[in-house]
């Protein structure tokens, strides 16, 4: 006893305890070779009126004796902390235990040993003092925070069941239902029980269905109370179930005793007299309806699982049975709602559907980021199969060498992974660009189904982008989000179309190029000849650029976040958006900037080609016209031509050079410095943006003049694609599209 010397390390701890602000005294109770037990008198910091009374209304004293028992394993193992024997065990946050042992406060949601490592003995005292303070205020259960479920840590038996399914069971009448379950015994002799979703009858065939991996579970829940409302299990009580008798007593307190009893009697009669019964676990799950939601759940139903090990000697399931009952802990299965909740998102009835086109590195990361948040795409499309090198940055790792070399469909790989996260995605191993061009209606219906859907293009492919803008595709699909890395591993690009694909994903790509060309560092990174093959507009394929998985993930994650925002809160109305992310050479840090892109003007030319004009180019033209109202003015149209879309994209204009001539009847585009200005843009963007024609104003509404036609012919001769002459007239535009000196059309809009 007290004659054993206290080890130095424990003596030091006792000194620290004594010095703690809230400790009034420390008394050594017993010392032995193996342990030192002390009583620590801790102030509960009771509020004034209760302090005067010496105790809180719920029995916490102003100074509580707390027993700390240090073992030889201290300081590796924290001391065991216990309250006085008569401390009210109905307090929440008291570990389950028999009434013989001292009540053990659960002072920390986590490991005491870790707390001791990080904050020392003071940390233990702080938590103990705080626990007592909260206990006195009965605010260990805070209705706003939720009902604290009885802790069931360090229990060997697990019941794995879908929480969503369990909480759907309770009805107004109350009841009990049986399920067949699969089980396995683990190394610690605990059972892992996996509940099925379909109820099962406890009929005569039951004994034959109990095998070495299949057993039965009974789930019971309460119904209405005598007064008519739902029966509420309002009292927090410690876990005291040890045998069948105490289990049934507990079920009665939770309002489901009768239902459980009936099922147990039936089960008992089915297996009675079966001497051959091998040991199988009978799982009992009581569902308690609490007065407020369980912490971390949006349901007031608490799941209380137990295991009874049935064998030929232990078949008594009556109210007086002393057959042992073990506490089990509930482990949820993965479900969409679980993932949503764990991600801090609110489950919604009908989440916005989305298609992922491109299941490569960027696409797979985005898909899995969202799948882990319960928001997986329900359609995934990729034409390719996995190659070994793809695994360097793909979100999914191969499960075997065989799989890594088996040229697995990328779309199927992602769909399988999504399935493992309890969501569903339909995979298509198809070349979507080709399909959209050859069978637009069918492809849209299968892969881009519905205009309310978001289509994420993570291919980095211009053909995919452009095929999504084909005339037969664009009006019948939802808004396109484009996500990829530009020109290597330092720039990321994310765009979202405006409503009705205006601005379209093509408009946004060229807007982005224009924006990038205005920042020297950005255009160097985006259009550097060294990475030319991966630049937007130049056949991007980010997979071919060597970079680490970490870098790719870092740039992709914010795009996934933004996509989540669009899916949950809905995309913004009225405009499109561009986000460009930039990371320094060493990857430490990121900077994102955002641009709202207003809808583009669309001018249909008689030739069938479309002329798309960015809002900013249109404004520049209007401004130039407004400053020269009495003479014709003009400039150079910058942008690009797309064969696939059969459209011009005017993203910017270069003003008329100083030597231009402006008169009432004619505008003459000068040359001074103009070539240099054009070449500057072409060089910066590696030709992604170039001159596509000219614009000029007419003072009155009039057709293209003969001069216009001649000039257009001259321009067309020098151009491998159609040339555009845009004419600003009061109230609109006229267009003149020429190709190979052959006039295709001219028309007022």
């Amino acid at each position, binding site marked *: 006893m007290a004659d054993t010397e206290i080890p130095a390390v424990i003596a030091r701890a006792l000194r620290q305890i004594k010095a703690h602000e809230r400790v009034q005294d420390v008394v050594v109770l017993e010392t032995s070779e193996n342990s030192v037990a002390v009583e620590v008198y801790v102030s509960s910091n*009771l*509020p*004034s009126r209760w302090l005067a009374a010496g105790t*809180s209304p719920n029995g916490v004293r102003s100074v509580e004796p707390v027993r700390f028992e240090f073992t030889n394993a201290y300081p590796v193992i924290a001391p065991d902390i216990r309250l006085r024997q008569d401390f009210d065990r109905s307090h929440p946050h008291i570990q389950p235990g028999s009434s013989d042992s001292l009540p053990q406060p659960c002072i920390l949601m986590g490991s005491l040993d870790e*707390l001791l490592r990080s904050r020392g003995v003071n940390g233990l005292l*702080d938590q103990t003092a705080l626990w007592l303070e909260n206990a006195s205020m009965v605010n260990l259960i805070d209705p706003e925070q939720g009902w604290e479920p009885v802790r069931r840590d360090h229990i060997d038996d697990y019941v794995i069941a879908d929480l969503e399914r369990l909480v759907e069971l309770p009805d107004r009448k109350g009841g009990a239902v049986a399920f067949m379950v699969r089980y396995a015994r683990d190394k610690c002799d605990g059972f892992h029980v996996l509940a099925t979703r379909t109820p099962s009858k406890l009929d005569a065939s039951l004994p034959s269905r109990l095998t070495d991996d299949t057993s039965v579970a009974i789930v019971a829940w309460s119904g209405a109370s005598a007064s008519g409302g739902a029966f509420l299990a309002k009292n927090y009580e410690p876990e005291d179930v040890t045998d069948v008798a105490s289990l049934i007593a507990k079920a009665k307190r939770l309002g489901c005793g009768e239902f459980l009893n009936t099922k147990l009697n039936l089960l008992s009669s089915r297996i009675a007299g079966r001497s051959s019964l091998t040991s199988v676990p009978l799982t009992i799950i009581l569902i308690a309806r609490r007065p407020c939601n369980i912490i971390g759940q949006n349901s007031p139903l608490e799941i209380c699982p137990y295991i009874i090990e049935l064998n030929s000697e232990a078949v008594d399931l009556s109210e007086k049975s002393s057959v042992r009952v073990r506490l089990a802990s509930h482990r949820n299965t993965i479900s969409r709602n679980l993932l949503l909740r764990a991600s801090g998102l609110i489950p919604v009835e009908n989440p916005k559907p989305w298609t992922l086109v491109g299941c490569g590195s960027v696409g797979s990361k985005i898909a899995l980021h969202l799948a882990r948040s319960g928001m997986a795409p329900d359609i995934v499309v990729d034409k390719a199969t996995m190659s070994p090198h793809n695994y360097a940055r793909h979100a999914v790792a191969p499960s075997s060498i065989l799989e890594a070399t088996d040229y697995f469909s990328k779309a199927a790989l992602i769909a399988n992974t999504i399935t493992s996260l309890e969501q569903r995605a339909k995979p298509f191993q198809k070349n979507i660009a080709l399909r959209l061009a050859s069978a637009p209606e069918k492809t849209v219906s299968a892969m881009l189904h519905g205009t309310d859907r978001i289509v994420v293009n993570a291919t980095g492919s211009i053909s995919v982008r452009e095929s999504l803008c084909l005339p037969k595709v664009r009006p019948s699909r939802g808004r396109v989000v484009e996500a990829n890395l530009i020109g290597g591993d330092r720039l990321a690009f994310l765009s979202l179309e405006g409503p009705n694909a205006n601005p379209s994903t093509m408009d946004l790509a060229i807007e982005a190029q224009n924006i990038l060309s205005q920042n020297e560092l950005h255009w160097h990174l985006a259009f550097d000849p060294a990475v030319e093959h991966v630049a937007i507009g130049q056949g991007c394929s980010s997979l071919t650029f060597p970079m680490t998985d970490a870098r790719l993930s870092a740039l992709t994650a914010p795009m996934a976040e933004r996509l989540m925002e669009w899916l949950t809160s809905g995309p913004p109305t009225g405009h499109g958006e561009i986000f460009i992310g930039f990371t320094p050479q060493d990857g430490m840090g990121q900077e994102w900037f955002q641009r709202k892109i207003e809808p583009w003007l669309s001018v249909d030319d008689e030739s069938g080609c479309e002329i798309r004009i960015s809002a900013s180019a249109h404004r520049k033209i209007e401004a130039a016209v407004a400053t020269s109202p009495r003479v014709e003015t003009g400039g150079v149209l910058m942008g690009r031509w797309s064969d696939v879309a059969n459209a011009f994209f005017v993203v910017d204009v270069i003003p008329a050079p100083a030597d231009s001539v402006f008169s009432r009847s004619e505008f003459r585009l000068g040359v001074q410095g103009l070539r240099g200005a054009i070449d500057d843009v072409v060089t910066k963007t590696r030709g992604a943006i170039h001159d596509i024609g000219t614009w000029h104003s007419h003072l009155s509404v009039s057709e293209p003049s003969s001069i216009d036609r001649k000039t257009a012919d001259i321009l067309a001769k020098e151009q491998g694609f159609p040339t555009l002459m845009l004419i600003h007239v009061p109230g609109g535009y006229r267009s003149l599209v020429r190709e190979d000196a052959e006039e295709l059309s001219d028309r007022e809009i």
Partner: protein
Amino acid sequence: MTAKTTHFPVDNGDMTLIETENGRRILIDCNIRTSAEDENDDTPNVAKQLRDRLKQDAQGRLYVDAFLLSHPDEDHCRGLKRNFHLGPPDAWSKKDDKIIIREMWSSPIVFRRASKNHKLCEDADAWAAEARRRVRKFKELGCCPDLERIKILGADVDDKTDKLTAILVMVDTDFSTIDGSYDYTFSARLIAPIPPGDDQEEEMLTKNDSSVVLNISLRNKLGLDGARYLFGGDAGVGIWERIWERNINRSHVLAYDVLLAPHHCSWHSLSWDSWSEKGKDAKVSSDARSALGQANAGAKILASSDEIHDDDNDPPCIRAKREYEDIAKDAKGKFHCIADGAGDDPYELEVTSGGVKPVSKQSVTTSNKVIGSQPLHHG
């Protein structure tokens, strides 16, 4: 949030911040000495302590929902001009970054002309000018605009406050509005200033005796009683005697869980005798003691003063401390001098359904104490 009161370490002076459970903040008096802002000076930086506890409005301006000036003495309003925005809200500047007073709670003494007995320090003058400006605005508009509200606590003599009914709180009545809106977690009973009997009495009334005496009740959101605080400014023994006389049959209106011992624990609030002259022969006024002795079980009596020593000093006065200790003892409560607190930190009380308790220096949940004290690895 939990209702809380913060008692700033301002030596012989008053400065208390009340936060109701609904999050409204009421400052009672201030004593922000310039030395408090000097880094090389030991005076606690109460301006910073206050600012750290205030909220900002949408324009980034710190504000208090209400500011009660118990009476216009320097040790109750020092630093007002330097730290609080006075004048029209439009004139607020980011550069000065002063605290907005959304509603002033003022005694009617602001309408009184300066006289021999009524000389004001610069800060008190500024308070009076701002109060008069707000009252003028009220008279012009028939109501107080946002950020320019004022409550006059107590009617003045000569009917000067007659046309101010909408912003006037009469003695012996309760109010629960703060800055124009009702807060059900708060109510206050105005106990004084008791209107003087006649002009002569008015002339004799010192600024101290014009102090607002308020019994503030802080409740929790369920409407349960939390704690009652009795604030009495610097009111002297004569006022406390009259208060007792007036409330003798309803002494519950004087009951408190926390008493801020008037006039920085001055003997003159409890006795007509001089402590330095009469020493142990000085007698306690039984009525004043009764008025100040309605302590609930476990009540705390706080002295916002310098440290209290066994000497002739007054305030704070050792004899007064002994009397308050006596009152506290009967109620199984405690006397506490704010200057005796730990270091420069203010003394903070949390209001609970069981009365008040010192705010624990730890976080308030059982689960996340570790979070924030070290990086947490997640596998």
